[in-house]
Structure formats: structure tokens, C-alpha cells
């Protein structure tokens, strides 16, 4: 079966499942997507996962000169955690998010979704650096739906990203480099307009097509 066909069938099955069942999200009324196929419960995981509410966190969005209260975002949002000096995993995560943003703008639903990539390196990722990085990554910063979030201090990054979001990160000092880097986990979250996690993507290379399809289901839910 071709992949696209598979996704369409999966989407259709999902819709049929909802139509035949009074509760959405296969028993969880807070979410639209059904529980992912896995061998553990969300409560066993260190990060907010399927069906769980986002932590009640407010973070500065330095390029927008405002703060974002994540639970108060009234549309579906995608979050990921990164640092801009990263050469390997983070640009792939940001690029995947950027591809979803471009899909949203191309297809005319740019105002119905928010993107909140959050740095855990506030020391280096200031407003200027984040703006430059966004431009390099071909993010449409003027679209109004993409806000880089930056915890105000190293301690706050540990508290929010490390503890509340369960994304571990640790400084490293690679040989031959004159700057610090991080060993870190990869996590991208799709959150619905009510602030509940629909999907936690753990891949280092999350598939933008899967995210786009999941997002569409959540938007229509």
C-alpha cells in the first residue's frame, strides 16, 4: 500500500471510529487522536504525553516582545525543544516544524495553528540570535504563528524544559570545539486548543507529513 493511501485510510478509520463512538480519543474526552500504540501509560513517561494537560507555564517570546501562557493558547500548537548552536538533531526538528508551518501557510490555515519552539540555551539564544536562526531556517517569522520561546535564565530553562516538560539536556564540551554543546532528548508535542497533548513525537527526525495529518485531525476535531 502506498504511504499516502495508508495515511488516508488511517484518517478515514480514525473518523469512522469517532463517528461510532460517543467519546472521542478512544475513551479520553480531552483529546481527538486515539491513544498511540505503545506498551506504557502516559503517566509513566517523564514528559507530557497523550491525553495529559500541558504544564501551566508562561514563557517570554522575545521576538514578539510578549509572554506566552501555553495553556491559554486557543488553537492547536506544536512545541519542540532545541538550542540554535546545535548541528545535528535540532535543525532537523526545527526544519520539520518549519515544513508544517509552510504547509499551513500554503493551505490557508496559518492562523489556526501556533508554533512554539523553545530554547534550553537562553544564555546564547537571545532575541537577535533567534531571529537570525529563524531566517537561516527559512521560518516565516512575519506570519504571526511562529514564536520562539526563551526561558529567562538557565535555572528557568532547567525548571521548565528539564523538569516540567521532561526533556533532559546536559552541557557537553566536545574536544576541538571552543564552545559548549548539549546532549539532549528529542521531543515534539502536538497540543490541542484546550491544552491537552495529542501526540508526543520522540523521533529525532519527526515526519512532517505525519504531523500535518495529525494536526489536521486535531484541527477538525
Amino acid at each position: 500500500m502506498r504511504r499516502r493511501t495508508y495515511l488516508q485510510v488511517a484518517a478515514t478509520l480514525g473518523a469512522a471510529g469517532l463517528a461510532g463512538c460517543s467519546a472521542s480519543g478512544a475513551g479520553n474526552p480531552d483529546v481527538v487522536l486515539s491513544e498511540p500504540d505503545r506498551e506504557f501509560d502516559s503517566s509513566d513517561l517523564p514528559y507530557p504525553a497523550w491525553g495529559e494537560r500541558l504544564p501551566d507555564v508562561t514563557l517570554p517570546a522575545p521576538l514578539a516582545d510578549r509572554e506566552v501562557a501555553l495553556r491559554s493558547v486557543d488553537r492547536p500548537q506544536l512545541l519542540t525543544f532545541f538550542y540554535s548552536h546545535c548541528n545535528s538533531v535540532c535543525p532537523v526538528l526545527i526544519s520539520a516544524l518549519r515544513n508544517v508551518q509552510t504547509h499551513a501557510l500554503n493551505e490557508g490555515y496559518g492562523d489556526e495553528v501556533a508554533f512554539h519552539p523553545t530554547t534550553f540555551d537562553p544564555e546564547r539564544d537571545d532575541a537577535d540570535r533567534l531571529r537570525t536562526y529563524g531566517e537561516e531556517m527559512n521560518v516565516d517569522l512575519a506570519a504571526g504563528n511562529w514564536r520562539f520561546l526563551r526561558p529567562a535564565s538557565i535555572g528557568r530553562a532547567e525548571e521548565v524544559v528539564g523538569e516540567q516538560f521532561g526533556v533532559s539536556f546536559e552541557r557537553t564540551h566536545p574536544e576541538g570545539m571552543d564552545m559548549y554543546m548539549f546532549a539532549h532528548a528529542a521531543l515534539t508535542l502536538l497540543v490541542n486548543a484546550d491544552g491537552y497533548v495529542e501526540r508526543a513525537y520522540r523521533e529525532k527526525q519527526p515526519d512532517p507529513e505525519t504531523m500535518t495529518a495529525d494536526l489536521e485531525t486535531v484541527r477538525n476535531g
Partner: protein
Amino acid sequence: MNRRRLLTALAGLGLTGGSLLAVSQGLPGGSDGLSVRVETVDAAGSEAGQLSLPVRGQPVTVVDLFATWCAPCSEQMEALGAVHREYGDRAAFVSVTNERVGGTLTRADIREWWQRHDGNWTVGLDPESDLMAALGADGLPYLAVVDRSGTVHWEHAGLVEAATLRDRLDRHLEA
């Protein structure tokens, strides 16, 4: 390499279950190897259209996954260009970005990037990351040597020197 062996080999690269799922979705059922269609871009050495990978009529296709934001991908172009000059008559070369065109990125931007890096072979688009998923690529640049049946004989994440790529091509062109 059959599909199961390909999946096993990719699993050996340390992919997560999620990536493997994407890989199995990327390979059409019943197929033995890579089979992905990409849109090609009008650029130096490249015509606008559609292209199936692996490239038909060529014993070997060199697949290069890149992105315009990826600094090491820029660096990779020098070695690729050198090897292309030597092997371009015996092997197909295709560079593909999974960046979705739109917003602040246009086909003209990709064309300009291509020209700036002296690209002179086919350059394509993979906006839904089908090719990335099929190869199980979890970083860029990413190079793969694929034979005419779609079997991936070699793949590598990160910068590759010209000598390494030459060696890999020689092995399969002589075989």
C-alpha cells in the same frame, strides 16, 4: 537486499521504532527496495519535472539529501561536484531537499543555492519527506548509493569525502 534485511540494516543504525514505522510506510508493499518519486527543479544541470528514484537506465544512483539551511550540506557539494565530474557519465546523481517550498523559500531560492554551490545535476524536492523516511535519514547531509533495483548498498549521515564516495561507486560499478 530484501525489505526485511533493509529494515534490519536501518535498525542497526539506531533508529527508533517511530522511524522504522515511517520507513516501512515509505517502502511500497511488496517492493524490494527504494522507490520514490520526486519533483525536480529547473536549475543548472536539472530540468523541472518528475523523477523516479532510483533513476532508470543507470546502474547506480547517488542520492544526496540536503537543505538550504544546512551548512555541512554546502560543504558536501564540493566533493559531490568532483565525483560527479568523474562519474557523471556512469552514475545518476540526484540531490533532494525536504524543505517545503512556500513562505520565505521559493524555487528560485533553491535554484540560487544550487548555482552558488556549483551544482550541475538533478536537484529535487521531497516536501513530505518520503525519501528521507524511505532511507531512514535522521540527519543531513545524507548520502546513499542505490542500485537499479532500489537496493541501498551504502548510506551515510554526515559529511563524506570524495575518496570515500569514489570507493563506494567503484565497488558497485565494477560488480
